[in-house]
Every structure is written in C-alpha cells, then in structure tokens.
C-alpha cells in the first residue's frame, strides 16, 4: 500500500508528458486530467501498476462550451478520478471497455444522457431512455428543459 503522494509522483515521472494535470484534493481523492486520446493509456497504466480495477461510474458535467467526463477509478485503498474534456460541437470520447469491461453500462448511459459519441463501444443501443424518445434530445445537457404536460384523464373530468 503506497500513499497518494507516492502515486502522484510515480504518475508524474512515468507518464508526465501525456497528462495535463494531477492534484490531490483530499485524502484518497486524486484528480488526474488527461486528453481524450490518452484516456485508455492512463486507465491501463493505473490498472497495471496499482490494480485500479473498479470503475465506480462515469460522471458527466455540461460546462457550456465543453463537456467534462470523470471516470471514477478505485482500488483497495485509494481512488483516482480521471477527467477528460470534449467540445460540445463535436462530442466524442473513446470507449474504455477494452481496459475495463464493466464500463459498458456507464458508457451507454453517457450516450443517452449527453449525446456524446463513444467511439468503438461494443453495444451502442439506448439503455435508459424509452423506445419512443425523440432523436437529438439529451436530458442532462443544461439547455434541455422539460415541462410537465397537462394531464388528460380519458373520459375524466
């Protein structure tokens, strides 16, 4: 078991030229910022090196011009949050199922909710949204608003 600082130093010396930023926000909360093309390399590296096998989930945030996706990775003593940014005009992220097979449901959820294209995803069908959901509507984008339709009871008052 090694400390967060040691992990940070090791990442900096091994793949320092391919990462944008690395910080420790709180104990056991390492934040790593990479470019989308380096995502799989970074995940494979931390999985190989310190057994970061558990992908807890993928959080997406709509920042306006850009989308931010955070891959919450954990092992048995700490966790690393790997962050990537992708432009809103052409949202694309690479699939991580090659490294973490259990990521499939989270990636399908991202596609449904943010309309991002996960390149190379083995199964790209919608996961959560209904079958008759209109094309091009992505609920978790900030500009998506929903108003409750007026309820009509058939044969009612």
């Amino acid at each position, binding site marked *: 078991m090694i400390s967060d600082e040691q992990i940070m130093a090791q990442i900096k010396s091994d793949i320092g030229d391919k990462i944008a930023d690395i910080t420790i926000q709180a104990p056991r909360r390492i934040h790593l910022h990479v470019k989308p093309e380096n995502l799989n390399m970074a995940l494979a590296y931390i999985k190989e090196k310190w057994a970061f096998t*558990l992908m807890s989930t993928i959080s997406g945030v709509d920042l306006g011009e850009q989308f931010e996706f955070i891959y*919450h990775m954990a092992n048995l003593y700490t966790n690393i949050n790997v962050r990537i940014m992708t432009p809103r005009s052409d949202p694309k992220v690479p699939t991580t199922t090659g490294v973490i097979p*259990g990521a499939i449901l989270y990636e399908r959820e991202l596609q449904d909710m943010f309309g991002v294209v996960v390149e190379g995803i083995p199964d790209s069908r919608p996961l959560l949204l209904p079958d008759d959901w209109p094309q091009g509507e992505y609920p978790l984008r900030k500009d998506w608003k929903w108003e409750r339709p007026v309820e009509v009871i058939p044969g009612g008052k």
Partner: protein
Amino acid sequence: MEFTVPIGPQHPALKEPISLRMTLEGEVIKGVDIKLGYNHRGMEKLAEDRSYIQNLYLTERICGICSFSHTTCFAQGVETLMEIEPARRGLFIRTLVCELERVHSHLLWLGVAGHEAGFDTFFMYTWRDREIVMDLLEMISGNRVHYAMNTFGGVRRDIDELQRKKIADSLDTLTKRTEYYLKIGSSEPTFVARLAGVGPLPKQMALDLCAVGPTLRASGVPSDIRRDDPYGIYAEIPFEVCTSDLCDVLGRVVVRINEVLQSYKIIDWLVKNLPDGPVKVKAPRKVKPNEAVSRYEAPRGENIHYIKSNGSDKPERLKVRAPTLANYPATVEMLKGQFIADIPLVFAAIDPCICCAERMVELRDQGSEQTRIVSFADLRRLAAQYYSVDRLQHKEVEWPL
C-alpha cells in the same frame, strides 16, 4: 434450437421492473440482454433545480430499503464542500442507523433468498427478526422506511439512555438467532444443495466487470468501502471484512450472514462508546464552487455520489450510482449456462432494490360500511387483543413428535 424468452419488465418472479431477455437452448440460458429504464425518474436532472437541503430529502427517496445510504453519502459529500466538520455524537448516531439499516436489509435479503430457494420457513423467521430492527429504527428516527435522520453537520434527533438500553437488549436476541441462521444457511443439506454452484462468478470476472459489495466479497475479494475508504468514524471501529471463496449464491448467503454478525458488533461498540455533546453543527446555506466524490458502503455495495457546486444554494450536478447498477454486468455472466429455474435465485442474489411500505391501514368493520383509520400501534394492540382470546382449540403435543 434457440428461443428468446422475455422475463419482465413485469414478471411474477421479479420484484422490480427490469427487462431480461433470455436466449435459451432447452432449459439452459445461452445469452442475457438487460434493458433498464422502467423505473428511471430523472432524479439527477431534478436535483439541479433543488436546494441542497431539498436534495437531502430527494436522495432519501432513491431507494426504499437503503434510503439512509443515499442521504449519508450525499450529506458527506456536501459537508466536504461546505468545509464543516460534523458533530461527533451525530456521526455516532448516523453510523448506528447505517448499521441498523444494513442489518434490516440483509435480513430481508436472507428471507428473499430462502423464499426463492423454496425454504419459506427461513423467510418467515428472518422477517420476524427484521421486525425487531425495524422497531429499533422507528424508535430512533420515528419512521420505518425514510428515516429523515440526516442533516448537514450531523443528525436531527438524539437518542437517550432508555433507547440505548433497548438497542443493547435487542442485540442479544438478534445475535443468538442470526448465529442459528448461519448454522442453517451453511449446513442445512437441502438449502445448501439448492444454492451451491448456482450463479458462479469467478474472482477475476467479478473484478473485470466491476462488481461491488457482497457480490464481489463472495467471489473472494476483500473490498469494503468502510475499510478501504473510511468515512465518518469507521476508521476507529474494529470490524472484519467478510469474504467467501465459494463464488456462488451460497457464498453470498454466508457473506451476508457474517456481515450481519459484524454489524451487531459495530452497533454494540457504538452504543457503548457514544460520546456526549451536540448532535449537529450549523451548516451554511450556500456552497462555494468545488467538487466532491463521496463513497459509501451501502448494504448492496459501493454507493457513489459526485457533487459539483457552483456557489449558489443548488448543486451544479449530482451524479448518483447505486450499487445494483454496478452489479448488472456481473449478473449477466452469472446467468449464462444456468437453468431457467435459477433466474429468480441468481437475480435475487445481487439483492436488487425494491421500494415499499405503507403506514396507514383502513379498517372496515364486518357487516357495516363504517371505516376508520388507525395507527400502526393501535392496529398492533387490536391484533394482540384479537388473538388473546383463544379462538382455536389447541391440542397439547409433545415435542419431538
């Protein structure tokens, strides 16, 4: 020849709406496809235009069994963002409710496992004992399902000496009975024969598919957020992480019973070491821009909330991942190669979440149309009164027959 059989979204064998499409060859499952979304309520979107304190009550309604897991996970994250240190006594009471909730959830699950295996006596026994825990929870919080105990900076209700004594007394009964269930669960020949080897999940596959909680621990991985990423006061509490190398449904039963026994020890420790002081500290209403990742060991596994604040009294983003979702990819693999009769058992073995609970009962007097609403306590009193009269002529029998 292969068939595709739809199980769900509404199906007598499943307790929640989920669609499983089984590709069968004879009675053997060859492939499984899961479709979700029948219970999707858009809570993450809803959370973005609710204030933090409103969201506390919204997150409570994510689940009807582990409701406290979600509020604790959310409260922890928001406390980090607010940069406040929760009151120590409050943390103890919070942990006490957490562990009681784990006990009631696991006892509920044990009953369901017994029921799915055709061992209904086990189901009735464990649910009887679960009632003791539910009564304790009601005594502490005033509610049986949505406890509404958490607030930012601590908890909303204190517990007194009498309640501490009641908890300690109930623990004796529960420990004795749970040890008996462990004996049955791991040695009763028909029960063991039904569960052993069903729903196999090898260790490496469990890790690859990101399984969490008792499902992962039953595949021999000692992963428990309470120990790996200690929150609250778990770093101080002595307890063991229960694992099993059986990698099947039997292993999941053994892990959960052992965990219940560990929880009793934790509750005992908490009640004995409860410090004095206030139960909560004052929390600010607005939160400056930041982000927090909060992890929590719910009864079903790791629960994670990601909260991003933007300086107002509402979160910019709240991402929730409940443990059941993490276990779905593993369930698909567990079902492959199994028989169709094993579906309820294997699916129930990950303990999928169910919502429930009704508190008011309408009594209709026989013969007249008069109705009246009674409280649960009154209903219980009426029931006791009804059965105090010996309505059946019991014949005394010598045991064993």
